[in-house]
């Protein structure tokens, strides 16, 4: 089984999701919950094994035994493995939370959830651009279906916008693929890098449009300005576990930008080298600015968290465009941090909102909640992480990014924007905290306290943050190596392919 490890993060959730459509798992929520947990545990094991094996050597898996670049390959390097693990951990949290009852608000929660994981993992692992499209569609369609989970006007409206924009986005993905295939003649990502360096001037012009269209597509997923409009409403109206899981969705876009625009069409792509870089710069900065403004102007915790996601997107891409790729390691660490913490915050916002009754998570006076100490502490820790204050992981991430930018040409921009957005986060989160927990009126609300599972879910996700600091040496070392591997390993992968390691 070990030699098939790379494909398992895709197949395991798919298999269980499919089983859930069939007897005996069909339509019984209890069995589905147990099955989901079981799957998550298995996936956790797979992800950890994957991390271990890929740390030694990048794993390449040729599906159907077809030699790349002809067949589809999966490539698990450190980065991909890390993303798979991240997804799984986040998924565990979201699933635990959902199993407290949210999964029963509509049909098919568990299969859709697992399909979503399948799509996300596939997007991380695939080494084929068209296959990436397919996995994008899987994760998108699952996200559409999950978004409406629980029902309600807000969700429907958010879905209309989210789905429409993404459908059009997918069309442009195909345009881009058409252009790239039409000029490069291949679909394998590593092979594309190779073909790109051989292009003639006029073909390169055409290929550039394809590369930039891909930026549009990934930017839409990542919620880069001005393609971010779907984000706030989608994230703030999705049911909590779904929103939490969605925290990884923007990262898929960012990951793809890292991979495709940072590496494949990066330094060594001949005439296509760094095509997207001049675009990512301003878009990332604008995203950060708009996210920051949105953060300050947020009127509820969910909207605030959604804006935090936006800020993290801007931050990540800003880190990516630091010349020489020296910000990538920092970005990867920050990615771990921000994904888990925003996932936790979405869950927390839901718990707080539910306990506050009618006021929900809006920043208005409300009756005291049932578990002020517990939720307050959790919120406090999450806020620390978000603001980037010790002892939570945000601080390490931020310091890493600032250090990476130190002394580079864009330093002033990056530093001032990141620091100002940190200040905005302080203002916004202190406002949020004081309003949610301290600004009270009336007697204790009669809403139910959050269930054990929900609390465990949040604690699980939040606990990752200090762990990322405590084991900071190992984690930063890993992300740094992952970044370097990503930057320099494509030639290696190419070589491995040619050597025919596939069978």
């Amino acid at each position, binding site marked *: 089984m070990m030699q098939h490890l790379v494909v398992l993060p895709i197949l395991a959730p798919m298999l269980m999701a499919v089983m859930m459509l069939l007897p005996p798992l069909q339509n019984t929520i209890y069995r589905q919950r147990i099955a989901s947990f079981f799957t998550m545990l298995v996936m956790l094991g797979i992800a950890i094994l994957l991390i271990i094996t890929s740390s030694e050597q990048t794993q390449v898996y040729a599906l*159907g035994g077809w030699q790349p670049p002809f067949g589809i390959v999966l490539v698990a390097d450190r980065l991909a493995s890390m993303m798979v693990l991240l997804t799984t951990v986040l998924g565990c949290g979201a699933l635990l939370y959902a199993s407290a009852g949210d999964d029963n608000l509509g049909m098919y929660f568990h299969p859709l959830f697992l399909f979503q994981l399948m799509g996300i993992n596939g997007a991380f692992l695939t080494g084929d651009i068209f296959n990436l499209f397919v996995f994008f569609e899987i994760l998108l369609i699952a996200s559409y*279906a999950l978004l409406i989970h629980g029902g309600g006007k807000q969700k429907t409206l958010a879905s209309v916008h989210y789905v429409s924009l993404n459908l059009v986005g997918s069309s442009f993905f195909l345009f881009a693929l058409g252009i790239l*295939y039409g000029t490069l003649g291949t679909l394998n990502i590593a092979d594309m890098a190779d073909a790109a360096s051989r292009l003639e001037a*006029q073909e390169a012009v055409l290929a550039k449009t394809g590369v*930039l269209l891909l930026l549009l597509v990934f930017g839409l997923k990542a919620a880069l300005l001005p393609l971010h409009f779907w984000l706030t409403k989608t994230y703030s109206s999705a049911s909590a576990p779904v929103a939490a899981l969605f925290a990884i969705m923007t990262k898929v876009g960012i990951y793809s930008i890292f991979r495709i625009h940072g590496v494949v069409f990066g330094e060594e792509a001949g005439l296509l080298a760094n095509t997207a870089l001049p675009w990512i710069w301003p878009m990332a900065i604008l995203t950060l600015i708009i996210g920051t403004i949105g953060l300050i102007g947020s009127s509820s915790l969910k909207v605030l968290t959604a804006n935090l996601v936006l800020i993290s997107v801007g931050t990540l891409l800003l880190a990516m465009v630091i010349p020489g790729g020296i910000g990538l390691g920092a970005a990867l660490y920050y990615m771990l941090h921000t994904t888990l913490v925003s996932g936790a915050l979405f869950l927390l916002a839901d718990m707080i909102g539910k306990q506050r009754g009618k006021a929900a998570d809006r920043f208005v006076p409300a009756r005291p909640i049932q578990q002020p100490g517990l939720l307050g502490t959790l919120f406090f820790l999450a806020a620390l992480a978000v603001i980037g204050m010790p002892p939570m992981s945000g601080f390490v991430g931020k310091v890493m990014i600032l250090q990476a930018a130190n002394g580079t040409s864009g330093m002033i921009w990056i530093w001032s924007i990141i620091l100002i957005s940190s200040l905005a986060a*302080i*203002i916004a989160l202190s406002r949020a905290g004081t309003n949610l927990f301290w600004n009270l009126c009336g007697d204790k609300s009669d809403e139910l306290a959050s269930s054990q599972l929900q609390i465990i879910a949040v604690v699980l996700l939040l606990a990752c943050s200090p762990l990322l600091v405590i084991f900071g040496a190992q984690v*930063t070392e890993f992300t740094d190596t992952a970044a370097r591997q990503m930057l320099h390993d494509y030639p290696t992968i190419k070589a491995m392919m040619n050597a025919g390691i596939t069978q």
Partner: protein
Amino acid sequence: MSLFWIPLLPMIGTLVPLLSERWGRSICALCTAIAPAIALTMVLAYMPSVLAGQPIQQSIEWIPLIGLELSFHLDGLGLLFSLLILGIGLLIILYARYYLSDQDSMGRFYAYLILFMAAMLGIVLSNNLIQLWAYWELTSISSFLLIGFWSHSSNARKGARMALTVTGAGGLALLAGLLMIGNIVGSYDLHTVLNSGDLIRENPLYPVILVLVLLGAFTKSAQFPFHFWLPHAMAAPTPVSAYLHSATMVKAGIFLLARFYPILAGTEQWFLMVSLTGLATLLLGAYIALFKHDLKGLLAYSTISHLGLITLLLGMDSRLAAVAAIFHVVNHAIFKASLFMAAGIIDHESGSRDMRKLNGLWKYMPYTATLAMVAAASMAGVPLFNGFLSKEMFFTETLDQSALGSLSWMIPVLATIGAMFAVAYSIRFIHDVFFNGEPINLPRTPHEPPRYMKVPVEILVGLCLLVGIFPQFMMGDLLTSASSAVLGGAVPTYSLSIWHGFNLPFVMSLIAMGGGLLIYHNRRSLFRFQAQFPETDAKLVFDDTIKLVIEKAAHFNGWLENGSLQRYMFWMMFMVLALITVPIMNLNTTEGIRPETPLNNVMSAGAALLCICALATVIWHRKRVIALLMLSVVGLIVSISFAIFSAPDLALTQLLVEVATIILLLLALFLLPQRTPKESSPSRIMRDLSISAVIGGVVGTISYAIMTKPLVSISDFFLDNSKTGGGGTNVVNVILVDFRGFDTMGEITVLGIAALGIYKLLAQMHIAMPTSDIDGRSWARDKHPMMLEVISQGLLPLALLVSAFIFLRGHNLPGGGFIAGLITSLALIQQYVAHGVNWMKVRLKVDYQWLIGSGLFIALATGAGSWLFDRPFLTSWFDYFTLPIIGKFELASALLFDLGVYLTVIGATLLILANLGKITTGERPKQTEYE
């Protein structure tokens, strides 16, 4: 390793009060005190060694990549501050035990307090810049919690946020500064950094670093113009004010200045920025303090003033001044903490802090009054009390200044004026509260506080006296050691004694006292004078600013994200346009070298048909059914185009999908308005038309440019290996089920998920059904025309036969599981159309969800089957067999995979369409009878 325990113990101790709260207040306080007490003992144990000039240092690696070490360092400066933090901290714990009321959660309070203590210790002991910053931020956070402790009060919440915002902002600036320093030095080790003073001062970034670090220090130490948060932090319980806002946290900024004195001081920039800020703060604080009617307000501004004084001292270009600064840090901490505690007692026992109400308390609490008087005298700088000593040193140093050039004389003058006000407010504090007539409308009758509440004050006041009278004995070694740490080596000679003779500084002291008395005497006219200025409350300004920022931000959000998909879509198109037109400008020629395919009339007619119908769809898009018909022609032509350009599989698929789509859209149209209202303005239409036309133009251009260029691609491999490697002659099909079978598996997964999602959408849908058609005509009565039923029944077996035909030949000829699946689905849908949902429901007992599941499962299992043969997922297998009669035939795993596709397609399509029909049928209102 024990140095780690000093900051670590309180950190762990944070949990102690939370756990011990249940055992009662005294025990809680006692338990809370354990950790700091041990830490204090340890500091004392290290003291001899440090005083002997042997600082202690311990570190372990943490995150080497960012230069973060867990590294502590106990030198003179750290020792002095640690003693202050732990010593006063213990007193505060005792004091708070009596101060807090029963309603207050003591455990929480102590937890915050100890957390703060730990953070503070961390700052003063840190030997790593990043670690120092981390603790620095932790003090901001814990002080936020402490200020907001009485969270029900709006003042507390706002005060806490303000403090956090200001100090947090400073903290970020500090971080930037520290990172720059680290970058220049190449290390974040404080020791290394402190030895690189010249390197830093010579760096072109030095001014930037200086400003950033000073921002951190000034915000924390409430220096003008960042002083405004401190008075509002007084919303905190008084023990907090005594501890944080007089003795410790506000001194963190001072500590920072002292700590970086060796590397940042000594330049003109330093002198100007630090001393002027200090001077301004000194004067402003002293002046405003006098006018505060609130006891704590007075003390807060006095604190600001004293912090200004210390800052001024550090800013002076003199090593002795630095010593004086350190000395004053200690003195101020002692007397101000006791004053705050006294103020707390008064508040606690009388229920008010308003000096206009508090009068003549001497009668009620003479003991407390005595203590307060000693502390106030120290604050005023009266000889024999510790405040006098450092103030005299300060005066001495002001006289030595020449950095302001011809204006240097102003420094001593202004210092004296500041001191006059200090005397004045000190007198006010005593006279206004303890004398000055009778109390007015106090909520409670004042009396002496409980015994042990006075103990901390007594101890501190005792220290005031001891230090004031025996300075050298009390402070000598400690001060030398601390100063040596600040100055980085040799400490200038100075003398700590009560009497330095009748010299100019002493004269200044006398002037200050006389002037202070005079000012206090004339306070009423001064109050009147002050009253004529509108009170600019910094808090209001700050609050308004924040509120405005939030409002503007919210407004901006609302404006940007106005909830209009059309806008969002437009922006996306705009990005598309930008992204594809910029590079395409460089395309010199679209003409390639590939020979063009010849054009004929038939194709031109087809193209015309396509374009006209596409345009007609747009033109008539508001008449939806018509547009739909136009659209279906477009689909038809597209499929025929595929057929013409040698893609029979595509043509078949497109045809089927097209019909399925049209049926779906027709179903949807029944439940949607039949016409679109006209609501786009002409300008909007023009805008949309232009952008879509330009994108269309560019896309067409790109398409043309690509088609006319030769292509070197990986496709030959597929043509070469399709038969030999994949066992099929239909290369497209072999690609789908074999070479790129993984894509296909994903594709049917998408289809399956879509069906599930749609089922989910339908499950909770309650829709109003139109009772008449678009023109108001009622529906026909005949639901299922007999003729249609009969013919449909007859067609079904034929259609299934065709579907089987298409399925089986797919591997070698156009066809395959997907196409066959769609044929089957459409044939069944046709039955639904002819017979209706209810008729079908009874007869067709197939669970479509189950069908999807099995289809996907078969595909998955086929793929995983290759594992049995130790091959990668989806490795195909095929072989040829010969049977009698039948002859040679082929068996291939791809066919099984295709079966999965087939079943999934049927399941998904029917789950969607049949369920949609079910919904409408179930909810259709009774029709008005046929006329």
